[in-house]
């Protein structure tokens, strides 16, 4: 099965089209269907949040889209960049251990560009631009062990934006951070994303985070994973601390919570997040 297909999707405003996606782990009697009947269309420049209980297959889904793992059925169509053809189709911001401890901050940010063969001076120029955008100026020669958890995730975000992929994939990048750092980074991420005009798929299990970040939110069911409901998040941008106090925000949160509650109940006992 081909990992990613490049081409025109039926709806030309869609950056990515996923149809009938199916992922199976194991074989024979011990087969586990991780994802089934998964369908998703994400238009250009949309920030799409994927929300679901532990083990519902949302990380698996991201890894399929990124081409890191195979899938057993269905199609993924990603519309290539209109401008630069050497851009990667996808690039991922990982939750943990996504940046390399043996590389300086700058080398980490420039890593994808280096793998793509971008000349040294050019890739460092690009890397410095994003270093600044994620507020890490002055840390370019620091090693990751000298950074806090939030700073490490900024490096991961800077690398992904520096790579300039057609689609940005984020796998709970702030999942391991404390609440305050998380809110701070959410705002910073939105700033960088707004400047970059980029399509993003963001996986999280945090309802408020999804509401703060996304244009739309897909709520996944437990195994086999599929999208149960898509909710439009019509909250004004830029989103700030005040956004959380809006009536619409509270109403949306309650609505999502009702949908999720059923799924949490179904997916118990809590399993490993795959």
């Amino acid at each position, binding site marked *: 099965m081909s990992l990613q297909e490049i081409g025109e999707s039926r709806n030309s405003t869609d950056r990515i089209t996923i149809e009938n996606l199916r992922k199976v782990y194991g074989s024979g009697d011990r087969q586990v269907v991780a994802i089934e009947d998964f369908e998703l269309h994400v238009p250009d420049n949309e920030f799409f949040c994927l929300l679901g209980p532990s083990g519902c297959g949302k990380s698996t889904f991201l*890894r399929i889209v*990124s081409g*890191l793992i195979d899938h057993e059925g269905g199609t993924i169509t990603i519309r290539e960049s209109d401008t630069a053809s050497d851009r*990667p189709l*996808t*690039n*991922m911001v*990982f939750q*943990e*251990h*996504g*940046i*390399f*401890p*043996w*590389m300086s901050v700058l080398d980490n940010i420039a*890593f*994808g560009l280096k*793998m*793509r063969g971008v000349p040294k001076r050019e890739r460092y120029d690009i890397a410095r631009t994003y270093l600044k955008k994620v507020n890490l100026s*002055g*840390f370019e020669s*620091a*090693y*990751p*062990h*000298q950074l806090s958890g939030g700073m490490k995730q900024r490096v991961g975000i800077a*690398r992904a934006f520096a*790579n300039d992929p057609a689609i940005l994939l984020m796998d709970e990048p702030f999942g391991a951070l404390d609440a305050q750092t998380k809110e701070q980074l959410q705002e910073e991420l939105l700033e960088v994303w707004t400047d970059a005009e980029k399509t993003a798929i963001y996986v999280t299990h945090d309802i408020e985070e999804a509401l703060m970040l996304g244009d739309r939110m897909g709520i996944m069911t437990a195994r086999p994973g599929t999208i149960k409901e898509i909710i439009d998040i019509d909250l004004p941008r830029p989103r700030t601390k005040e956004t959380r106090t809006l009536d619409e925000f509270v109403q949306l949160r309650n609505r999502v919570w009702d949908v999720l509650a059923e799924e949490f109940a179904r997916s118990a006992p809590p399993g490993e997040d795959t």
Partner: protein
Amino acid sequence: MSTEQGSRWSSVRDYLDETNERDLALNLLLPFVILVGWEIGAWAGLINTQFFPAPSAILGVAGQMLADGSLVHNTLVSLGRIIPAFVVASAFGIVTGLLMGWSSRIDTIIDPIVSALYPLPKVVLLPIIFLIFGLNDLSRMVALGAAVYLLVTINTVGGARQVEEAYLEAARDNGASGYRMIREVIFPASLPHIFSGLSLAMGISFILIVVVEMVAAQSGLGYIIWNSWNLFTIKKMYVAVITINVLGIVFTYGIEAVGSYLTRWQERI
């Protein structure tokens, strides 16, 4: 940041300086007591100086050997055997280990041989190696190299197998594969293990060089030790023993210093 980093580094250095000074004094205490005791014992006739000549007498012979050039010559001969064997064998060992860590198929093919030969005392191979390569320096270096190669391979593969899947995944997602995966991820991630292998291998090299030179060699520090024993020139023997010891320490620490510089990205506790 620069000031923050600067103060952190200087405080680390202060800490090291303090502990170094204190530790160094304690480290040197026992050797000093032993040497002084030995010297006094030798002069007072409490120790048999035929077997344990006074340190000052050994020093005198060392001076003679330095003057006639024999100490420098034989040291260089020994180093001339150790260094090429060590460098070539480590390079092959690192490459083998990285390939094994990178590809489970290569690992499956090579692992049985490496694991089977590793526990074998390499000295027992010496007669076979002499049979194959003749009674010459090449044989001695092959014996040394075999030990170094296996040790470095085993340690490198230990590091390469333990590279976190998350790093490999992130590298793949950023377009790394094949050689560049090894160069950019597996190799640097394995460096701490590689250097502990190199440091062990250096220690083994100094043990083996003595054994190898004791057997049918006409030069080298190991030869001096064996020859002095046969001729009962015990002071010469001590000079060679101490020289080997000092060189072993210097080279092993040298490797550790290079290693800790190259892995300065690691969090140190």
